[in-house]
């Protein structure tokens, strides 16, 4: 499989993860910077490394399961493994400019 073919399922996986929102911030977990890594191997095994906005977040298990469900429904995916980490801790710097604007976070305040 060349790199172009490999990129497509990964982008689809990222798009699927965008259907999952952090309930408190009300924005998708990809643009909030909560997804640290996504990988899919040739056998269709998907792997997601993600975090939550705060350690001990009450929504952790729901977000983990939501991320798993969103990718599991994609064609060609055999199974999904979602791992939650707090290393490194999430910070607002990890958000995309769009997410920051949505939350009314001023650019200079996060530098």
């Amino acid at each position, binding site marked *: 499989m060349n790199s172009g073919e490999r990129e497509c399922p990964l982008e689809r996986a990222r798009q*699927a993860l965008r*259907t*999952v*929102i952090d*309930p*408190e*911030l*009300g924005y998708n977990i990809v643009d909030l910077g909560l997804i640290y890594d996504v990988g899919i191997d040739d056998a269709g095994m998907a792997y997601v490394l993600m975090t939550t*906005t*705060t*350690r*001990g*977040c*009450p*929504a*952790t*298990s*729901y*977000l983990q*399961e*939501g*991320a*798993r*469900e*969103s990718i599991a*429904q994609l064609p060609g995916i055999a199974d999904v493994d979602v791992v939650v980490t707090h290393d490194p801790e999430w910070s*607002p710097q990890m958000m995309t400019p769009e997410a920051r604007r949505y*939350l*009314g*976070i*001023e650019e200079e*305040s*996060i530098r």
Partner: protein
Amino acid sequence: MSYFAAALVALLAAESLMVAGWGFPSAPIRAPATLLLVHLVVLGWLSLLLCGALFQFVPVLIARPLHSATLPLPALILLLGGLAALLTGFLGLNGAVAMALPLLPMAGTMLASGFSLVLWNLGRTLWAARPLGWPAKFVAVGLLGLAATVAIGIIFALVLAGTTTAPAALRIYACGLPIHIVAGLGGWLTLTAMGVSYRLLAMFMLAPELDRPGTRVVLQSGAWALGVAVLGGTTAVLANHGTAPVFVVAGVLGLVTVILYARDIAHLYRARKRRVIELNSRMAAAAVGSLLLAALLIVVLGSMGALARHAGAVVFLVAFGWLSGLGLAKLYKIVPFLTWLECYGPVLGKAPTPRVQDLVAEQHARKWFGLYFIAAWAATAALFLDSAWAFRVAAAMLLVGTAGIVLQLVRARRLDDVPASVRFPAGSMRPPLILSSTRPH
């Protein structure tokens, strides 16, 4: 959610009694009617609210699950049974009901058992998570305050019921009321609320977690204030010495605690990343302002030698401006959040879901919160002016404000304010009004 529902019923009942002219200031501060009203507020409303909140948020503070998910229910049953026995027991003291049963000792036993289950569950949870962060340490000290409050309360109940006539118990009954109040309002309710607020405000406003020397001093001075008041006060009472010097020292330490806490919270608001903050965070600021005002009043009244005469007004401001105000503000976040987890958590990733903020209609809730705080401050002013009539008018405003807030909480729970197009994605269902269940983190 059962804790919160029971707590809100107790608050509405207590405010209705105030409107009806039951208890202080229409009756003396030590009258059975006042005792009933005060315990309906501090046990029925504030303590149940805080227990329910701690069962949800101690796991968030320490990022570990609760020691036991099953103990909160028997604890609630014991606490409600104990509260009912206590209130009926006070009515018996009033002569309003015949005392066929030893209600006060029964109340003491049930409340002690219920709070012991709470202490055991939260204590074991915290113990397993050592070393604790700052917010959790506040909760740990607050739980010690709860243990002290309950212990002194049991002695009061046994003396009032005539079960014991031990000289030490009689002395504590005669002179220990300030210790009971300081341990309960200052130690258990205030220190715990401070600890939880540090973390919740930082979480909801995207502010950096506080870990600065000032925060350490808040905890240390708060813990010392509680220790001096409870241990020093009890020793002074048992030794037949005056308690005034002990309370002056505890008061100065308490004042340092409140001022540095308010400074920390102001820093959190300034350092927040979310410029537009939600109603619950704005109303929490009004509650912290009430605490600061109460501290300033204690200093001014103390220096004028008028603190004892106006103690009722200051205690009211602490209970309704600070603790209840903060409690209602945070419920306006906790109830929608838990409801979201129950209804939309299971369908996350399978269907589009609304935000937690879509479960509330702030434009409607704002006026009820505004009325609530204005009424709490007006009622405090009425107590300063010794006007029972003005107090009842302010209490009526307080009741209307609270009922409005409760209605908004019910609407959030019933998903009434969620746009119909996204209210029930496939696989979701409306959660029950009172019972709730969410997955462990």
